[in-house]
């Protein structure tokens, strides 16, 4: 966990660059942010109104998804978010239902596992308390296009195969802890292969319910043209995530949906 590597030093530098307290870095690697340099990105989604790629400003992204332990600390500090106190308009009844108690993790929620059963409102509140925010969909897709060595590995059939393999695995087994998978080219871990993640703009994914799996646009539900369709039907990661996020409401919580936070870079 605490091995001192060049990558670790780089991450520490990024952390200091962000003005994060050093104590945060020493407390453990989770909660740490890494810088993701921006760029122009060809999304796997087809946006009718965006022709030349999505422009992404440089941002910082949590190295790993938020853990049960981290969310527990937040709930203890902000008891309004206890599962027995939070209004249902912000979190449905299954919110943190795998915890043993409102402020107790228990055997179904190990400290280093990514937190799941968490609503968009709660995820946003957690990030805001860290001086952060949820990433946008585009930021998530941009960072998640990388493999261990390339910032955009999406054309590689082997990479796609790995991702498809995860999505086709049954989700009944217990979640591994965060940070076990090799960091991608930005130093970010677990964007694939662990949990699905909220984005701040999840409700901007306008995909019709009937055609969700194909991602075909159905404009009639929305004002004007430009519902989203898939440009690349082989990009399973994006297709599955969009199908998931476009079906959710802000108070929803599911067994495999967690989150991580992001920050603007100066």
């Amino acid at each position, binding site marked *: 966990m605490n091995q001192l590597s060049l990558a670790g030093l780089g991450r520490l530098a990024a952390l200091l660059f962000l003005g994060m307290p050093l104590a945060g870095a020493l407390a453990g690697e989770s909660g740490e942010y890494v810088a993701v340099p921006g760029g122009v990105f060809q999304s796997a989604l087809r946006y*009718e109104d965006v022709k030349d790629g999505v422009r992404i400003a440089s941002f910082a992204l949590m190295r790993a998804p938020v853990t049960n332990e981290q969310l527990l600390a937040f709930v203890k500090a902000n008891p309004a978010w206890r599962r027995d106190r939070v209004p249902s308009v912000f979190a449905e009844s299954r919110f943190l239902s795998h915890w043993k108690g409102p402020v107790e993790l228990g055997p179904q929620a190990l400290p280093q596992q990514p937190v799941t059963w968490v609503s*968009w*409102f709660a995820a946003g509140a957690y990030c805001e308390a860290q001086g952060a925010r949820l990433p946008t969909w585009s930021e998530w897709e941009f960072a998640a296009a990388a493999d261990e060595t390339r910032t955009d590995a999406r054309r590689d059939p082997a990479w796609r195969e790995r991702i498809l393999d995860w999505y086709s695995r049954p989700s009944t087994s217990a979640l591994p802890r965060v940070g076990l998978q090799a960091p991608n080219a930005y130093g970010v871990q677990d964007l694939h292969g662990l949990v699905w993640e909220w984005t701040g703009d999840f409700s901007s994914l306008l995909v019709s319910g009937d055609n969700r799996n194909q991602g075909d646009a159905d404009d009639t539900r929305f004002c004007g043209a430009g519902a989203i369709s898939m440009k690349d039907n082989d990009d399973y990661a994006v297709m599955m995530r969009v199908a998931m996020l476009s079906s959710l409401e802000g108070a929803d919580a599911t067994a495999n949906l967690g989150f991580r936070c992001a920050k603007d870079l100066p």
Partner: protein
Amino acid sequence: MTKMNSIAAFALAACLPCGAIAQPLKPGVLPSDSVYLLPLTLTDQDGIVHEWNSYRGKPRLVTMFYTSCQYICPLIIDAGKAIERSLTPAQLQRLGVVMISLDPARDSATALKETAAKRRIDTARWSLVAPPAADVRAAAAVLGIRYRQLADGDFNHTSVLILLDPDGRVLARTEQMGSNSDPGFLDAVRRATDGGP
């Protein structure tokens, strides 16, 4: 998004029966599923700032729109007017309408007022309001409204009328826009505005 943390404070206020932190002007405790639990300030067509929860107390039709919308948004207004035309004068008096802008960058009080005038909206019963830009996504989320701003500044958005009870619970919703009202939705509005305790 930046308002998320104040949700915590507000939720705390709402969940404590004592109401120690609750807004002094709001006697009683909102139900757990009330959309009015979202901390939100709204600026109306006259430039007056309202707390979102100040709209409690009577049933309301709520929707999200933007004034520069050419196609669907006029139909949303038509849908609201069609509902009103189907009500008795007594029912009409008991109903309020709140149209929340998705586009606070452009929907100033002046822009909202112009739309109200152009569309002959009675601002005694209807409020055209804009939230702070950072709070639009959360406002849409409690209302189950999805939207995306397009490159040209227009918005794709769910076009929906939502009927709230006096405490801000969702009673009914319809995506049928224009002058032909959804019969089930109209019935719900009639029930909500019929007499009362």
